[in-house]
């Protein structure tokens, strides 16, 4: 069973979102996503200060198996990216919700976060996906 922390929000494209106190959100990919991809070997993060639309492909994770886009779960401005992933992409595998974070976004509209799934919904979502 994959780990789905209850304090995070989730997108159907398997990103997680943590609301920080300063009006930004931290984004990464879920434990379920890293497990399906297998060992990561490269992470391409977006340009800092760039703007993204909700659902826009803005990062790429490449595993031993496949390349996969990471989508911005909400619209906003990229304020930071995880530079450690340049040399240590495996952090996404070993600590997807901590050291393996991918980017931080200053959110245009905080209400947009309500559109995302909570942990219970996401657990159901991946269970159904696995059955399908």
């Amino acid at each position, binding site marked *: 069973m994959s780990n789905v922390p209850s304090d995070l929000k989730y997108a159907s494209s398997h990103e997680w979102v943590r609301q920080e106190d300063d009006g930004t959100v931290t984004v990464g990919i879920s434990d379920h996503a890293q497990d399906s991809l*297998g*060992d990561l*070997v*490269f992470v*391409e993060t977006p340009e800092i200060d760039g703007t993204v639309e909700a659902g826009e492909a803005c990062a*790429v994770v*490449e595993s*031993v*198996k*496949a*390349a996969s886009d990471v989508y911005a779960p909400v619209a906003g401005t990229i304020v930071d990216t995880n530079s450690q992933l340049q040399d240590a992409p*495996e952090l996404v*595998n070993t600590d997807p919700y901590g050291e393996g974070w991918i980017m931080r976004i200053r959110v245009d509209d905080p209400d947009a976060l309500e559109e995302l799934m909570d942990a219970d919904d996401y657990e159901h979502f991946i269970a159904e996906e696995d059955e399908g």
Partner: protein
Amino acid sequence: MLQRTPLHDRHQAAGAKLVDFAGWEMPLNYGSQIREHEQVRRAAGVFDVSHMGVVDVSGPGALAYLRYVLANDAGRLKEPGQAFYTCMLNHDGGVLDDLIVYYLSEGRYRIVVNAARREADLAWLREQAGGQDLRIRERSEMAMIAVQGPQAEACLGQAVDARLENRLAGLKPFRAAETGDWLVARTGYTGEDGFEIILPGRSAPDLWDHLTDAGAVPCGLGARDSLRLEAGLCLYGQDMDSATTPLEAALSWTVAWKPEDRDFIGRAALEGQRAEGPARRLVGLVLEGRGVLRHGQALHSDNGGEGEVTSGGYSPVLERSIALARIPVGDDGPWSVDMRGRALAVRLVRPPFVRNGQAFID
């Protein structure tokens, strides 16, 4: 319903991620493909390859038959236990499958074929055998375990009885020892020393347990693929298929041209291509920048040439992406790969990329 090997419950107990491979439920990895890969380069790994097809060809007509259906010359296998790698071709010289042939004893040969080709191969082999004094028998009761890596001999020595252990030490590459219903061969698909053991399925779980007790780490098909890619070994269906000849897949060395009077299926077509010179060739690629080369990606040269990545992946030893690719003969580039709309430079190299744990290219 997927087929299962006799080691299925061992895989589940070891936490394997199981996937459908050619109709078989096989381990992709047991947690980390890269760790498994590195284990084989540094120590020893054990693979369940029981999905591969084991076919015995026996009888007074077996040798003449094999000399006709295979591109290499089974007549070169003089001593029991000798083996070679070769291709089975169609009449156009296209590769129907690549395989290993073991000479067991006079009039007895064993062929190991790809899982995905097993049915097609058997149908083809039977079709060619009409009227000849031989028997073709699929040995689906057999399992196959590969133990690979610099410590493979030590691990296998610990896992078998003293009598068999003594025979392992003197076994040269591409030689096999038959003992009862076991065949232990010094062959593999990783670029490391190692063994492949064909044995009755009922005996496979015990050997697996003894090998893992001796320190060989279970490895999945993911590591098997990245290891063979580093070793520059072709994968059927990706690097060659029935529309590709051995000459276009860097496999000319698996074709026996001599003696010239040996007719084999595909010979006429291959001779023609050899005289004209093939238009395409298989090369190794290294990606200079970040990213991963993948099967099917398009290649472009500054001279207008076009090619294709046939097998690509990440090399844990070289810590960058490598590939096998098919490009036009005579166009040495510079070449670039189209990766998600961007052109990235690739360098042509001569495989292998890695052998016996050592990088073979800069």
